[in-house]
């Protein structure tokens, strides 16, 4: 497969087309219809949550939010392939993947409401927190991978970064270290074609992102990131290789249909035509077409499902909104195993001020 879809020829690995028709039967991943339906459900849930997050933010109930709209098949594929013992090392635009790994929507909302608690992902196993400095998380993935190998664990690391992130030194160092260390890491570049306002063509001159794997002697492939089946298949194959100590680079070609974050205005830097073209390749619409054609999905019942999703999302959002106030202690107590005396003193001094302030009222 990696040979067949040589990124040097800029080949794109696809399994279904824009109308949901199967293009490459032999590459159809071996998953049950139920699993596919489940994946569709998950993607739909993620999209609904994503849309609602944007509107909560517009209502001033969250500080910021980075939409995933249009990129759901990447997380959807991950959800199918990731095992409990695998690691997920995300950046910051990974709603579906977080949820798949066991993070709750409530936590995710909490994070964008401004609580560190929201990035702990308490009940999710083997997940790293939201990483804001672009591409820096990839090195953590490699370290985690080294530890897997060192400790002889059965686990693979899925590390995610954006197209903009491929320009950073950390991207290069991470892929190089992973290869040299035979670390079980699958690197997934969500090439949504923009880094905020900067289009892919201003980010690099390579014919695509996948070829960058050659610089590290790595297997690499360019995948239609809006094609769930292609993502699943590519991830499965990559995981196999990674498990054998051969890290892999997957470019998942997609399009960020929404804004960069809720404070961004994409009309400044891209055209309506472009957006409309990409709307036709929407991952959820494509998968729905596939399912409908296979009679696995009934569009009529989708509405009821969405209503149910919305209720659940609202419920979790409200739970987040009713989260306890941020305690002063929480500013101080997590920095060190034992709080240094000076830090304690700073807190005490501040508390004296608060007492004075209280007393003045």
């Amino acid at each position, binding site marked *: 497969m990696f040979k067949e879809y040589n990124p040097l020829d800029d080949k794109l690995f696809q399994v279904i087309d824009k109308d949901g028709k199967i293009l490459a039967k032999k590459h159809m991943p071996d998953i049950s219809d139920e699993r596919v339906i489940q994946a569709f459900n998950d993607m739909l849930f993620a999209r609904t949550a994503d849309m609602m997050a944007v509107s909560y933010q517009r209502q001033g109930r969250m500080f*910021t939010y980075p939409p995933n709209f249009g990129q759901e098949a990447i997380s959807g594929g991950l959800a199918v392939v990731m095992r409990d013992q695998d690691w997920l090392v995300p950046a910051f635009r990974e709603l579906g993947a977080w949820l798949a790994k066991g993070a709750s929507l409530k936590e995710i909302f909490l994070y964008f409401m401004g609580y560190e608690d929201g990035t702990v992902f308490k009940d999710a196993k083997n997940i790293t927190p939201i990483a804001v400095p672009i591409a820096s998380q990839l090195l953590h993935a490699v370290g985690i991978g080294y530890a897997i190998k060192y400790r002889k664990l059965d686990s693979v690391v899925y590390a995610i970064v954006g197209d903009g992130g491929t320009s950073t*030194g950390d991207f290069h160092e991470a892929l190089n270290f992973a290869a040299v260390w035979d670390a079980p890491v699958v690197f997934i570049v969500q090439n949504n074609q923009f880094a905020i306002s900067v289009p892919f063509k201003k980010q690099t001159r390579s014919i695509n992102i996948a070829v960058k794997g050659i610089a590290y002697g790595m297997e690499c492939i360019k995948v239609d990131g809006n094609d769930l089946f292609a993502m699943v298949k590519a991830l499965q194959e990559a995981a196999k290789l990674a498990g054998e100590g051969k890290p892999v680079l997957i470019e998942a070609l997609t399009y960020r249909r929404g804004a960069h974050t809720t404070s961004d205005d994409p009309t400044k830097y891209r055209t309506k035509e472009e957006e409309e073209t990409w709307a036709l390749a929407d991952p959820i619409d494509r998968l729905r077409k596939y399912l409908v054609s296979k009679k696995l999905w009934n569009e009529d019942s989708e509405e009821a499902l969405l209503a149910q999703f919305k209720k659940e999302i609202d419920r979790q959002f409200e739970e987040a909104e009713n989260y306890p106030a941020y305690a002063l202690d929480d500013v101080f107590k997590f920095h060190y195993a034992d709080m240094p005396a000076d830090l304690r003193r700073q807190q005490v001094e501040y508390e004296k*001020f608060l007492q004075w302030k209280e007393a003045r009222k």
Partner: protein
Amino acid sequence: MNLVTAINQAIDIKLSEDPNVVVFGEDVGVEGGVFRVTEGLQQKYGEARVFDSPLAESAIIGTAVGMCMNGLRPVVEMQFSGFAYPGFNQMISHAARMRNRTRGRYTTPMVIRMPYGGGINALEHHSESMEALYGHIPGLKVVIPSTPYDAKGLLISAIESDDTIIFMEPKRIYRAIKQEVPEEKFSIEIGKAKVLNAGTDVTLVAYGAMVREAQKAVALAKKENVSVELIDLRTIYPIDRETIVNSVKKTGRLVVVHEGPTTFGVAAELTAIVNEDSFLSLEAPVKRVTGFDTIVPLPRGEHHYIITPERIHFELMKTARF
């Protein structure tokens, strides 16, 4: 005119005056920067002079060093100061050293702009104030304006300076303060603090977004008949020792306010300075009203961290009555 416009004007003026000035960084071109500070400049001066770079801070600073060596005067942007660290090696090892290394043959007349500081309800890494790090690096100068007027005048000086200037912009007040600022070119000398309010009882030093808070504290103190001399530091390195020391010789007391962590922060250096040059005048310990030695909390906890006029007032009064 607000701070954003003032900074935009300063860059605009220098772009129009000096063909060697170029402006680049992440999203500064088409989009005009995430805070719109460079808005309109690419349209006006073209893509060769105002442009988006790939996402890589080490490269932004490192290539700017090279441009300087070949005759240009780059003004680069770090999208947030919290994302400048990948460029730290180029900053400390080259931007700060090229002149000394080559005994003046090559200079690095560049400005590294970066929005800094808290109070904007942002995610992690978007709120920090690490000016003391830059101040400790020999070869750099560090400037922080607190008003649109100063921002414009100081940035013009920075772009004209033959040294590398770290120009930190208090993003919290980007649009919060409006002021009459001349449309034409003017400049303010780097390295000079400014006495904003003459006073006799306590000296209060602040900079950046904290100046506004300090001004409110001065008003509160006045109500309690404490006369505060308020100084806007404006340049973090080199520090205007004279202005600070002269004030403390008069008042005998000093309170320093800044957002960044306490330990090894700017207030420690100011304490050392007044201790060196006005030891015998000091009537009370210097008081640091500064950020904790912690990471700035996410928005819901930020009110615990952020310094309010009330907190400054509380400490001012204690110092005044020591």
